[in-house]
């Protein structure tokens, strides 16, 4: 596959005191792929994607996105370039309506507010609840709203941090359909603990362990990798 590289990280490092949360990670994302990031708790997955989207400043190393160096770019400008991040711990605007939550994403890129907001809500099945206060939604619906906000940005790269955590099985199926629909226009980087979701969706998987890349490859290759089995898959 002669894919175009959308994002490339070289020697990415972030230490917190003595803790090497992310330690010299090389990483590439091909345009249009679904790439899963897995690893044991504390492996540095969230820190790593936080470096990519700019929530945490990079200590050393570099990030290129769509041909440009974004290593020092503030997070809000990376969003404008097309990197969207959905939070691991749901961070919807709890006191605003569902409509306003998504409208905030739509209006930022100058979309047609009412129409596109409703369209984004319909896509995730929340159209009926547009007027509801987001904080009163069920947990599952809040997760879905969080994803809708990411989608409404129409990003080039959507980073999903444990999106299926706390979702019911039926909701997980809907989620998987949703992700399949948005590629290849949007590239998806997925942190996920649910192995069924990973194996089902991902075209490539990167395994992090102690802040370093343990392996990268297709789901089959990762499943067969003895180092990965030892560290993570409970082999």
């Amino acid at each position, binding site marked *: 596959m002669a894919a175009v590289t959308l994002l490339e990280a070289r020697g990415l490092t972030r230490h917190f005191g003595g803790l090497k949360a992310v330690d010299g990670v090389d990483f590439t994302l091909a345009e249009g792929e679904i790439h899963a990031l897995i690893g044991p708790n504390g492996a540095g997955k969230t820190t790593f994607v936080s470096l990519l989207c700019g929530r945490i400043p990079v200590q050393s190393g570099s990030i290129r996105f769509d041909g440009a160096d974004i290593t020092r770019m503030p997070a809000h400008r990376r969003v404008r370039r097309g990197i969207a*991040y959905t939070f691991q711990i749901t961070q919807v605007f709890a006191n605003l309506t569902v409509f306003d939550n998504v*409208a*905030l994403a739509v209006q930022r890129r100058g979309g047609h507010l009412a129409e596109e907001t409703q369209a984004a809500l319909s896509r995730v099945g929340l159209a009926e609840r547009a007027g509801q206060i987001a904080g009163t939604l069920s947990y599952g619906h809040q997760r879905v709203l969080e994803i809708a906000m990411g989608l409404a940005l129409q990003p080039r790269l959507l980073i999903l941090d444990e999106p299926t955590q706390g979702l019911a099985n039926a909701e997980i199926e809907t989620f998987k359909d949703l992700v399949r629909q948005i590629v290849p226009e949007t590239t998806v980087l997925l942190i996920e603990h649910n192995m069924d979701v990973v194996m089902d969706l991902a075209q490539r998987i990167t395994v992090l362990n102690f802040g370093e890349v343990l392996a990268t490859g297709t789901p089959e290759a990762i499943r067969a990798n003895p180092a990965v089995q030892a560290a993570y898959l409970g082999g």
Partner: protein
Amino acid sequence: MSAGARIWALHLAALALLAAGGVLLPAYHLTNFAKVMVLATYAMGYNIAFGYTGLLSLGHALFFGAGLYGAGMLVQHAGAAAGPAAIAGLLAGGAMAGVVGLLALRTQGVAFMIVTLMFAQAGYLTILYNTAWTRGDEGIVIAREARVLLGFDLSADLPRYFAAFALFAAGLVLKLWLVRSPSGRVMIALRENEERSRMLGYDPYARKLAALVISGLYAGAAGAAYGLLFGYVGASLASTQYSILPLLWVLLGGAGTVLGPFVGALLMFYLIDYSSAVTTASLLVVGVALVLLVLFAPKGILGTLRERWLKWLP
């Protein structure tokens, strides 16, 4: 009626009532209401920063004072007319908020409160000590001849009332439009969750600075109007007390509501007015009122109304 039409109808009706008040109110209340409308304009500006954007400033007296002295000193030293003086006051408030914001907005929360408080205190002392320019403690009395706008004598009851009303009405309409606009939605988003807003592509620093400058323009305009309508520009009006007062008015009326600052300023004004006729401990009455508010309606009067019944209230 659509939600938008209902909202505009309510606020325009409130303005119509106030306009009618100019004809119906007796002279004593005419002066009071003029003062309340000017102070409510100041409080509306405070509410844009605090109630909508979540910036708890303790230094707004500096912006109010910039408006007061921007207008007052121009009249005093350059013999300016009321119109240019008012515009100078407006701009002085906005510029001061911009300068303070550039530095203070590098901090958040309690640090922001302290930094703004210190800037305001420095401003207050500057006014107090530069007697050649500000006449220090005594303050500047703006002569009656200078208080004429478009041919109206602003020291007379009726023109003063309607000048205050025009300022308040402009401020209210602008604010209602602002908070219901996409920019207003971003301000509220920053108040609710700054990190999430950033990850939607909004620059928190720039947006908060813009909100603070708008807030400063309101404070500046109100300060200038206060000086020109009531003829006095004094350091006490730029003291810490005048940073706390708009906060109290906004909390009383309802933070993050468009009409709340007016309701709060009006109630507080008359609470002090009536209680001081009965007792010298009028501030105690105010204190009790605030305690009751915190206990039974922590979101303020209109905030509580909105929570319970009027969910559509902006």
